[in-house]
């Protein structure tokens, strides 16, 4: 193990780039999450009805419809053919996320993300074991289950317990006991399974992941030759299995993180002290600097 591997995560980046630069995307992400929530709260709180509705379905400036495609898919599975407004709304959302990466929803919009991020932060601070780690594709199975149950019961089944829409609806319309579900997700991630909910189980995340399979916006390990094996990106990435193929790719292998599991959170960009990662598009296969084997540094020492 290299010396740098043992440094606390992010310290090197903060030292070299400054705190702000080393938390740029994290801060932007929190701003974005707050922004999207605030849009929905402007109405109920300040009587400013720019956006009405919830994440499941909304209307912006009285005209633009947006519909959560997964909720609508459940409705379709349940046997209801929706009106045009909802269909158009879903198509817009589908197109947007197909372009910028499905799981951008996870990192930049979903209100549960700050909850599970907080759970992970505490998990780290307390130095807890990673606990139960179901296979990553469990969420795909659950996605299938959700649609199957919708079809069998003829209801929009997942919405009976979906903590995401419940939390959002709770904040915008009234909480009831929805907070208990959110607390459950927090405790699950904290005590039962590290990154368990968003990383392994959430069928919404799975759906958006599938949606972004061919998305344009991508993170690329463009300067992977500069990697000094500090492992910080692996430590901060919520889906860290996506990094290795790009970062450790041999000559001629793409530096792009192409896994649909990547949430485009940009945390790896933040935390890398030598700026290996950058946002780019999926056709940009540039690799800067000498590629692997990267001079004397890596394989030899590691």
């Amino acid at each position, binding site marked *: 193990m290299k010396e740098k591997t043992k440094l606390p995560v992010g310290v090197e980046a903060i030292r070299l780039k400054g705190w702000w630069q080393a938390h740029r995307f994290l801060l932007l992400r929190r701003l974005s999450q707050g922004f999207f929530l605030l849009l929905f709260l402007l*109405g109920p709180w300040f009587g400013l*009805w720019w956006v*009405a*509705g*919830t994440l*499941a*379905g*909304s*209307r912006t400036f009285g005209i633009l*419809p947006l*519909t*959560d495609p997964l*909720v*609508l898919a459940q*409705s379709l599975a*349940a*046997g*209801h*053919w*929706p*009106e045009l*407004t*909802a269909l158009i*709304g879903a198509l817009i959302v589908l197109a947007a996320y197909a372009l910028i990466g499905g799981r951008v929803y996870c990192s930049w919009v979903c209100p549960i993300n700050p909850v599970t991020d907080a759970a992970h932060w505490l998990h780290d601070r307390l130095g807890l074991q990673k606990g139960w780690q179901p*296979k990553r594709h*469990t969420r795909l*199975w*659950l996605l*299938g*289950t*959700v649609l*199957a*149950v*919708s079809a*069998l*019961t*003829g*209801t*929009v*089944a*997942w*919405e*009976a*317990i979906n903590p995401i*829409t*419940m939390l959002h*609806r*709770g904040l*915008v*319309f*009234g*909480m*009831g*006991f*929805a907070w*208990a*579900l959110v607390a459950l997700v927090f405790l699950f991630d904290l005590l039962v399974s590290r990154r368990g909910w968003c990383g392994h189980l959430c069928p919404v995340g799975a759906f958006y992941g599938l949606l972004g399979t061919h998305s344009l916006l991508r993170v690329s390990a463009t300067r992977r030759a500069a990697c000094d094996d500090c492992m910080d990106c692996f430590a901060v990435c919520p889906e860290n299995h996506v990094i290795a193929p790009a970062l450790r790719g041999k000559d001629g292998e793409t530096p792009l993180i192409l896994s649909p599991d990547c949430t485009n959170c940009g945390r790896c960009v933040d935390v890398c002290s030598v700026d290996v990662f950058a946002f780019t598009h999926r056709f940009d296969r540039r690799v800067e600097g000498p590629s692997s084997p990267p001079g004397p540094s890596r394989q030899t020492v590691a």
Partner: protein
Amino acid sequence: MPAATPLSPQRRRFLTDTARMAGGCALAGGGLAWLARDARALPAEALRPPGALPEADFLGACIRCGLCVRDCPYDTLALAELGADGPATGTPFFTARDVPCEMCDDIPCVTACPTGALDPALTDIDEARMGTAVLVDQENCLNFLGLRCDVCYRVCPVIDEAITLELSHNTRSGHHAIFAPTVHAEHCTGCGKCEKSCVLPEAAIKVLPLRLARGAPAEHYRKGWEEMEEKGGPLVEGVIDLPDRLPGPGTDNLAAPGGFEPSFTLPAPGAGE
């Protein structure tokens, strides 16, 4: 079948993993199905907005966006909160006794609905059937006690069609009338204004979901008098219309005191041939 070849470890592993996953999902799916179906029992005092599809269809159609709630100018509607309200979580409903539906002419709630869970085919609010009012407690209804409260009648947006006052003799006082508020489900929209305004501490008239409020005639029942009117004559030719036997004086019911002999005698069986 070919001779059994031992499964390769990868394949065995794949199969056990798949089986395990399928089992887990069946379990989770069962739980979810139970929850989703459980939510189907809409409590009697919760009414769906105008134009709502029948409950079973509604639960497959409503995405719980709340746009109908937002566009209701009277704040009639609310989204059900988990564990606090009866209807399926996040679905819109109203409680007539709290805030009834004001039956807006332009039905903004229906217009707002992006999915058709509130059926856009409803364009005339008088056609809405959110439930139907039932005078559930004649013993406490002031009108039934012989007073002239009439409030439920007077507030009804479909007055004289959905609700009428039916006059009858007040046998208690002997010389007053009873104006019984009488709902005609055919015209009642279930708006709940009558229930809201009933002056009693607990309303004597309540809007109930149709499934509770209404009986249903058996498929094969025909109402003779309606059929006769339609046909313009007796349904079976050659049937003699016997005089009605009513009890009491002045009738031909011999069993009743004061009864008298019928004005004609039926021919004895076999006599008239």
